[in-house]
């Protein structure tokens, strides 16, 4: 068997809770709490920390910054300015205000970095109930990355149709098995239940 390392990125997996509930497969043989950070937000931001995991860089260097709790920003600079002005309004109000611009074809963009890394991550949800299932029809797991062993074929693998532990389909498991055959696969699973 080819030696591989599978890296599972568990969004919001709390070290204290994993220990409290004896999650032996989350903690594995060697485990510990590692330092994370806050930068653009009061508490650690998913949007900032994962790029730091992937690049080893602080947000000031990889430049993916979560300003005002916003994971994305309008491509149009005028709308970006308007979004800053309305940042303290309730989310529902801001969403309503944005709808006409969405319908008019304005798009929000995700921040990118050109910092060196071998990781490239998408995010999907695991453990959520039907609302999220209906929202993007592919809750569950994540994504990946890659690998030396796949160069020359697909330099990047995107498992966008994976399903969660209880609902993973046959197709999803086939993809997972394929990923486990590569050297490093990164799966991003969220434990941050909004409850």
């Amino acid at each position, binding site marked *: 068997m080819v030696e591989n390392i*599978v890296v599972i990125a568990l969004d919001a997996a709390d070290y204290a809770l994993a220990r409290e509930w004896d999650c032996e497969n989350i903690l594995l043989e060697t485990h510990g709490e*590692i*330092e994370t950070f806050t930068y653009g937000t009061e*508490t650690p931001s998913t949007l900032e920390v994962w790029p730091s995991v992937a690049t080893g860089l602080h947000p000031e260097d990889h430049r993916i910054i979560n300003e005002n709790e916003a994971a994305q920003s309008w491509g149009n600079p005028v709308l970006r300015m308007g979004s800053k002005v309305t940042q303290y309004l309730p989310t529902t109000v801001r969403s309503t205000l944005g709808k006409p611009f969405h319908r008019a074809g304005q798009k929000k963009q995700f921040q990118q970095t050109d910092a060196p890394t071998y990781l490239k991550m998408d995010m999907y949800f695991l453990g959520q109930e039907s609302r999220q299932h209906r929202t993007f029809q592919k809750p569950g797991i994540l994504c990946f990355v890659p690998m030396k062993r796949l160069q020359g074929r697909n330099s990047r693998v995107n498992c966008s149709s994976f399903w969660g532990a209880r609902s993973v389909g046959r197709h999803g498991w086939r993809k997972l098995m394929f990923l486990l055959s590569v050297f490093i696969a990164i799966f991003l699973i969220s434990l941050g239940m909004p409850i």
Partner: protein
Amino acid sequence: MTREERLRSVYEQVDEMLGWIRSSVDHLVIISDHGMQVSWIDNKTGKHSMRALFATTIDDQIPKSVFDVKDWLEDRKPNKTVKNEDAGFDTTAEQLEALGYK
């Protein structure tokens, strides 16, 4: 079901799934970016905690911080050739909104 019970249920589901993966691979690494505040530890809920975790089947010292993970992984690759790619998110707006980001 209480909040604690629901949260614990998710951890147990993920732990079970990871058990299957653990049995299928040579080495496994688990990383998190932060934890979640809970009432019985933090006296408040709903926000991210500073309790990020790192776990591995490899018998070795773990990284000190999230900034050290990349080098830790690269040092353990059989082939040190690294393919550079952007580290941006390809996630759609709908997916991020479901994660709580607006």
